[in-house]
């Protein structure tokens, strides 16, 4: 684990990065959690380039996996489909920012995860999420560190650990 004083990171510089921010009812803040880990993978986060650069500058091995061709040559991005392609999901923390948009992944056992999903039912959404409990069941999260929703009650999150003895 890497423990860095959050004040040193000038996180307020990232206030406008809506792909990182998640406005929950509580004080859940992905940015602060990330800095407790040595390696982090963001799955289909859209543009988090600045945050990736900041993480890596702080010795956190942070990458994003996103199949969108606009990230083909983007620093810190692996331009692959993490559902259908062969990808390395070896990290201390995996963040799925848009669970509603993809097939439920087979995440490594014992890995810490942040799962966020909604039921806004945008075109292309295949896994509408209606509660944190659904996320827990879908991904077999064993230990739950934190869970909740946003102010509108349409976006849900779970921060926890994938069960060690996950039955596939």
């Amino acid at each position, binding site marked *: 684990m890497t423990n860095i004083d959050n004040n040193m990171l000038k996180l307020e510089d990232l206030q406008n990065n809506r792909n990182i921010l998640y406005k929950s009812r509580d004080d859940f803040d992905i940015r602060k959690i990330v800095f407790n880990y040595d390696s982090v993978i963001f799955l289909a986060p859209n543009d988090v380039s600045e945050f990736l650069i900041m993480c890596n500058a702080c010795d956190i091995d942070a990458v994003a996996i996103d199949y*969108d*061709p606009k990230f083909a040559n983007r620093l810190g991005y692996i331009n692959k*489909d993490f559902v259908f392609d062969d990808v390395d999901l070896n990290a201390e923390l995996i963040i799925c920012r848009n669970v509603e*948009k*993809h097939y439920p992944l087979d995440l490594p056992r014992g890995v810490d995860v942040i799962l966020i999903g909604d039921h806004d*039912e945008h075109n*292309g959404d*295949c896994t509408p999420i209606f509660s944190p409990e659904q996320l827990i069941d879908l991904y077999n999260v064993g230990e739950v560190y934190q869970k909740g929703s946003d102010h509108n009650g349409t976006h849900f999150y779970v921060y926890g650990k994938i069960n060690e003895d996950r039955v596939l």
Partner: protein
Amino acid sequence: MNFYTLQWGLKYGAHYVNRLYGSLKKHYHKPFTLTCYTDQADPQFREEIQVADIKDLRKFNTDRVFTYEKLILMEKHETGVWLDLDILIHDDITCMADDPADFKMIWNHWNPYWFKSQKWYGKGVSCHVNSSFVKWNNPEWLIKFTNDNWEKIEWTYKSLDKYLFYQHARLDRLKYWDEGLVHNYNVGNHFATDRKATFKKLPGKVVIFNTSHKATNKGITDVLLELHEADFRVTYIWEGYDKHRQ
């Protein structure tokens, strides 16, 4: 050459199937068959049309991956051409149908890819290919990939076209008809808006109408005309494919 089409429900009647046959008779200049996989063998079908039960193509019990039955056609028949019913073939397609590619489909040339498709790519709502006119020659790789990944495909994609776009166009596995051969009636101002325009020749060899995505996606406000609702240039040719007029 063996051509195949699918018909179910009430949206497109026997006259659509019959006129498709008529268009092939006029614009494919070699011996051919047309097989219609359908849920209702209509007695009004032309006697030359071969009829098969669409259940034979429903290998998977799903209401997702719209028209995935086309993929099962490839398992059953090593080579062929599948055609949607709502297309107008209006020029010689012999070279297209005899194309040796293992899998060739429509690239939506009428939509600027970088402007439109890539904008929505990451949201999973982009689609820049169309399977209204497809030639195949034993694409084992596609059949294998589909079978190996069916659970994920079924979960993820609402339509065959999106599956093909996101999983195979993305990795450059598909081939496409040259630009200019296929046009979309509902995109690109191909419809005639005045009487003078009705005398202009239709572009390319095939015109598609591509209306199904309006039903499966919300927020599409475009006016999309069906083949039978099109302007005089289209309906004149289309009705000319009736048996008694050939």
